[in-house]
């Protein structure tokens, strides 16, 4: 496959502000090479990641979603990461039932000092999603996304 037609996966990365985001920042500061496919979204805590966001990301065309939080016990808010862990485990089962490969959703613990780990995870995850290919979730739906009457109102 030619360089430019190669499938470039679009990955959304929900990073917790205290550890993962700082780690990613450290990776950048330390000039570590990491795949640009991970598009970062900063949240105060991995506990803030609502499964709705993950589904919304897939629905909007993301091919993979990375959730990164502090190591268990390190969470700035004590237990936020544990909640992320539980939600992710349940969400993976539902994704499987919706025919979406659960590997497209990945949960990682990255501490503020693990810039190198962030880079590694970003690269690994990008290759993994590339292998899985595009999700094309809504291609078949003629009418496009469900008519969101709520939007009308909001």
């Amino acid at each position, binding site marked *: 496959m030619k360089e430019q037609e190669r499938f470039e996966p679009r990955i959304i990365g929900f990073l917790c502000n205290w550890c993962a985001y700082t780690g990613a920042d450290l990776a950048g500061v330390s000039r570590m090479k990491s795949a640009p496919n991970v598009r970062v979204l900063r949240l105060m805590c991995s506990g803030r990641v609502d499964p709705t966001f993950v589904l*919304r990301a*897939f*629905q909007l065309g993301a091919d993979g979603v990375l959730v990164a939080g502090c190591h268990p016990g390190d969470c700035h808010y004590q237990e936020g990461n544990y909640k992320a*862990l539980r939600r992710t485990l*349940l969400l993976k089962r539902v994704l499987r*039932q*919706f*025919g*979406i490969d659960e590997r497209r959703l990945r949960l990682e613990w990255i501490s503020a000092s693990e810039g190198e780990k962030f880079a590694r995870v970003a690269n690994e995850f990008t290759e993994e999603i590339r292998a899985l290919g595009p999700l094309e979730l809504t291609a078949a739906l003629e009418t496009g996304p*469900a008519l969101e009457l709520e939007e009308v109102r909001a």
Partner: protein
Amino acid sequence: MSKPKLALYWAASCGGCEITVLDIEEKILDVAAFFDIVFWPCAMDFKYKDVEAMEDGSIDLCLFNGAIRTSENEAIARLLRRKSKILVAFGSCACDGCIPGLANLTTREEILDWVYRGSPSTINENGVRPQPKVRVPEGELEIPEFYEEVRTLAQVVPVDYFMPGCPPQPPQIVKVMTAIMTGAQLPPPGSVIGAGDKTCCDECGRTRQEKRVKRFYRPWELVPDPDQCLLDQGIICLGPATRSGCGALCVKANMPCRGCYGPPPNVTDQGAKMISALASVIDSQDPEEIQRILDQIPDPAGTFYRFSVPASLLHRRRSAPAA
């Protein structure tokens, strides 16, 4: 001045919503008196051509229940949209896809294969399958096309009001009908009527503790305490993520709410919200133990999206099932 015209139609659904209209007992007489029922194929013998003969927008109120499964459903949906001023997605099937919508978790091929070959009660040696057009001695027969997926009414035509519930409860119907009949000011188009803004918990009345669930039980595994919140007792109840309006009927019968009244106002994906809430209250920090607890939920998608697969963000399963 002639009476306002009322139309009801029964698309891809169980027909319960037709019956629930009658469940408003003697009030049906007021409705009949107020409205001129121009199209109710389930109750009286109306034909398509009768509707096509009407001018556009002449039907004042159309209660459309049922999801869009076949081409016929789509056609009549578009027809009634054209013909009626107010089109109401009446009942969960029309609003969120409801039980028929669960088909989106499988494919068209798997359904037909199972019905006409796989199910233990089918005897179909030569694998006959129904075709959209078939020649028979009498002539050419046509049946509607069986779409790949189930869509909600709003995913086919713009809908003026959504009235959730499987079926919508008679007291809610009475409230809506009297509002219309008395000419009360109607809410802005697109809003949900016949239900509350709060969740089922608001009408439930059971005492609830801080949620710390160590184990999930299936409803048949224990007789729940009638005064304590079911979720506290480890029974999965979708009450917290379901719009109020039914008066928590199921919970009052000591059975968990399954979410038929659809998501509450601020929630787009009812299933996702329930996953988030439920996962958060699991009382364990060890991954293996969490997995063991989650194993106690045999069909997560079916449980959390029982009534809202088509309306959900993922809408349907991707064609190729995962390896």
